[in-house]
């Protein structure tokens, strides 16, 4: 069954969501939102939080623990992970998986180290990429810095290091609500034998339907939900009506 996964971008303890990685807007308490999404039938939660200071890091750990106590679905936490000690803290506060992005691009070994200690299923490698002429290029630091990695090359490297899953965001589509970047997702699937979560561009339930009918197995949702355009329950009942088998929470 395909997975419908709300993403919470958290800053200073609040959920925000950028449009094309800019213009951050506040849309709520992450613990309350995560719990509401789970009650409505979210299949997992992704929580991305970059803390700049020790106080912020402690605040986000406390919030993750509060969310964990309420959530009976998988919780993936990411944002600014640079060490095994940080991963250990996130898992100890109730994350089931961690999502790693920028640091892994310059230190691919950290993927192998996390996979060795906690298993591949624990490592989600998040990738931000955009089209450049005839190929897809990987960016880091929230899309601000271009890297030397071509998308297919980085996917294969990360898989070889032990990535259990990928979260692939199209920078060209993120925040535009113009639909998922199916061409990029299909390109990525040719390079790796791991589940890929599609991210960036969902503007309507029809966009989600189109991605699932095109063979995607997991989709990430942010602004579509946070801005109240639809709910998980409304989205899932629409998908079921359209003949897609998704989990209905009972």
């Amino acid at each position, binding site marked *: 069954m395909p997975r419908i996964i709300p993403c919470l971008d958290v800053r200073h303890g609040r959920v925000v969501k950028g449009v094309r990685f800019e213009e951050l807007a506040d849309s709520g308490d992450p613990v309350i939102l995560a719990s509401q999404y789970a009650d409505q039938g979210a299949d997992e939660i992704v929580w991305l939080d970059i803390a700049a200071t020790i106080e912020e890091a402690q605040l986000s750990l406390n919030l993750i623990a509060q969310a964990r106590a309420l959530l009976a679905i998988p919780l993936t936490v990411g944002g600014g992970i640079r060490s095994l000690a940080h991963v250990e803290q996130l898992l100890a506060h109730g994350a089931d998986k961690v999502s790693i992005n920028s640091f892994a691009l310059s230190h691919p070994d950290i993927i192998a180290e996390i996979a060795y200690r906690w298993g591949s299923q624990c490592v989600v490698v998040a990738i931000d990429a955009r089209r450049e002429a005839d190929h897809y290029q990987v960016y880091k630091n929230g899309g601000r810095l271009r890297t030397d990695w071509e998308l297919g090359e980085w996917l294969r490297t990360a898989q070889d290091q032990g990535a259990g899953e990928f979260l692939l965001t199209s920078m060209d589509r993120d925040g535009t609500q113009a639909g998922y970047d199916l061409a990029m997702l299909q390109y990525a699937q040719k390079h790796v034998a791991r589940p890929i979560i599609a991210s960036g561009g969902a503007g309507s339930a029809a966009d989600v339907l189109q991605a699932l009918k095109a063979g995607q197995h*997991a989709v990430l949702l942010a602004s579509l939900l946070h801005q109240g355009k639809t709910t998980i329950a409304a989205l899932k009942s629409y998908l079921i009506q359209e003949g897609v088998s998704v989990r209905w929470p*009972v």
Partner: protein
Amino acid sequence: MLEVAVIDYGNGNLGSLLAALGRLDVKAQVLTRASDAAPGADAVIFPGVGALGTVVQHLETSGLRALIERHLERQRPILGICLGMQLFFEEGAEGGSGLGWLKGSIPELNSQVLPHIGWNTVQQLAPHTALTVNIPQDPAYYFVHSYRILPANPHIVAGITEYEGEPFPSVIVDPPLYGVQFHPELSGHLGHRLLAQWLEEVR
């Protein structure tokens, strides 16, 4: 009050299981080595994330294997979750071995895309066990695994799941051993109910 012990064999990634037990008002004791054990837990939960690899060796050096086997000899129940259930069996793929309490092997799934991650349904073959009773038909649970069990005795299989055309056992009942391939602690209301029923049955 029911005393539940949860085996921690080194991954330390038990947050969601302990949270799920917390929602059931069960205060579980986490055992990382044999000397942590209070005498006589009523039930043991054997969780599992990660690889078969070095787990058996770790269970032996920490004394946990002997502890759990004494629990089994007293016919006290054990619930294996995911890798925890796989460890009940004998031979793993790529030379890894399980604990050999049940006859059977632990081959890799056939699918090109692994791990099998996400929600999938269980076809319940034996509807009257603690792991199936009162659960609706074809319930969906959360799975994350690349290996499956192949039990020698088909009669212990109480539920079957299919991934990419390959059916595999997802629930086994062979008291005092109980096992699920999926993660009840991550499976919403149904997972909660399954854990509650199991704890009630083994009480």
